[in-house]
């Protein structure tokens, strides 16, 4: 039995069936990359994995139990990053990071937040309100959560959007390190990215 397992998943949006009979399983240290053209249902699949949407058919199990009956226990084990960054325009980068990780169940002090942001290349910008930052910088603030969270499963929807090549490299390292430590990742991206560590599965939609 794998740690995360999706069986026979089907997604219906409006009057359109996006996909059906999707099966996958994920072990510690593995990564699934979801591929597919625009509108093929990648985001929909990821939201199902988080329990934010309910599959029309099939089920998703975590350690063998349906995630819908796990609730809080499951939420404590995942980190989701969607198309929207979830950063507050009026707060500074540090405040955003501290609060978002507190909400995810990990309280960190300003020093630690500062270090994480520094590592994401935001040194010197930690005290600016996020609304004045550039598109890529905002995305980096959101990604900094990955540095401080201690969850095993990361669900990332296009983490590379708006990032420059230096930041892409950074995210790549982060993922590799997470996999080496026994973490798991499900992600989508339209850009090519190659992860050295761990087994990489490919899930093609449409």
């Amino acid at each position, binding site marked *: 039995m794998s740690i995360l397992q999706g069986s026979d998943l089907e997604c219906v949006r409006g009057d359109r069936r996006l996909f059906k009979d999707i099966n996958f399983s994920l072990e510690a240290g593995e990564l699934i990359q979801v591929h597919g053209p625009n509108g093929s249902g990648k985001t929909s699949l990821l939201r199902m994995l988080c329990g934010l949407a*309910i599959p029309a058919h099939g089920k998703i199990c975590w350690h063998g139990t349906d995630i819908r009956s796990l609730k809080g226990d499951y939420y404590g084990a995942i980190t989701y990053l*969607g198309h929207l960054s*979830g950063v507050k325009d*009026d707060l500074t980068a540090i405040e955003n990071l501290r609060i978002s990780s507190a909400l995810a*169940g990990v*309280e960190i002090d300003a020093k630690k937040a500062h270090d994480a942001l520094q590592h994401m290349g935001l040194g010197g910008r930690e005290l600016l309100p996020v609304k004045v930052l550039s598109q890529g910088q905002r995305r980096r603030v959101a990604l900094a959560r990955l540095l401080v969270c201690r969850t095993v499963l990361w669900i990332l929807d296009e983490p590379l959007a708006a990032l420059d090549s230096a930041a892409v490299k950074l995210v790549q390292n982060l993922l590799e390190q997470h996999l080496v430590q*026994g973490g798991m990742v499900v992600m989508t991206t339209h850009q090519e990215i190659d992860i050295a560590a761990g087994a990489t599965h490919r899930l093609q939609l449409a």
Partner: protein
Amino acid sequence: MLPVQPIGCNSLNMSLWVIQRDLLLAMRRRADVLTTLFFFIIVVSLFPLGVGPEINMLRTMAPGVVWVAALLASMLSLGRMFSSDYLDGTLEQMLLSPQSLSMLVLGKALAHWLVTGVPLVLMSPVLGLQYDLSTEALLVLTASLLLGTPVLSLIGAIGAALTLGLRGGGVLVSLLVLPLYIPVLIFGAGAVEASAAGLGAGAHLSLLGAFLLVSLVLAPWAAAVSLRISME
């Protein structure tokens, strides 16, 4: 392996974090707190302009006007309770928080009350003076607002959660929430009238207190359910 369970965080703690964060956001824009307050003041001051300056009539109107204004001020700022968190994706993250969502919602409602309700309560005696109310009526008015405004924030949280992401939510929320506010309005304004009529406001005030207790228990839970529905 990384630890699965988060550490150093329980539900109460989480509410405090949320309150702290919302107050921080409010302080970042100190104008927010002031503007709700001034909205209240302005609405109360508008009525005599529309109705005319006759002092006897104004005195009779006063409790109703102050209460309606408080209700509108509280309702107007409901939009802010969840919508900005929704738009930038923070709410999604809150739903995925391992702690109880009700406690988060309770935190947000309390923060809303601290930012919008408390200033109204503090301001109301001054406005009562403008309407030439007696000292006792002023006291009762303030007490009724102190008990009633948290109820407004708590009930409002349900409405705000239900209308999340709907366009025109700002007005839709009023439609949903106003009917629920009406009992609070009737007993709140009634308390002042009763005391002015020499009947004593005790009964009205204890009813308001009961409303407060019930909504403290039920509203966060209902709002949490609504949030899950809205985000599905």
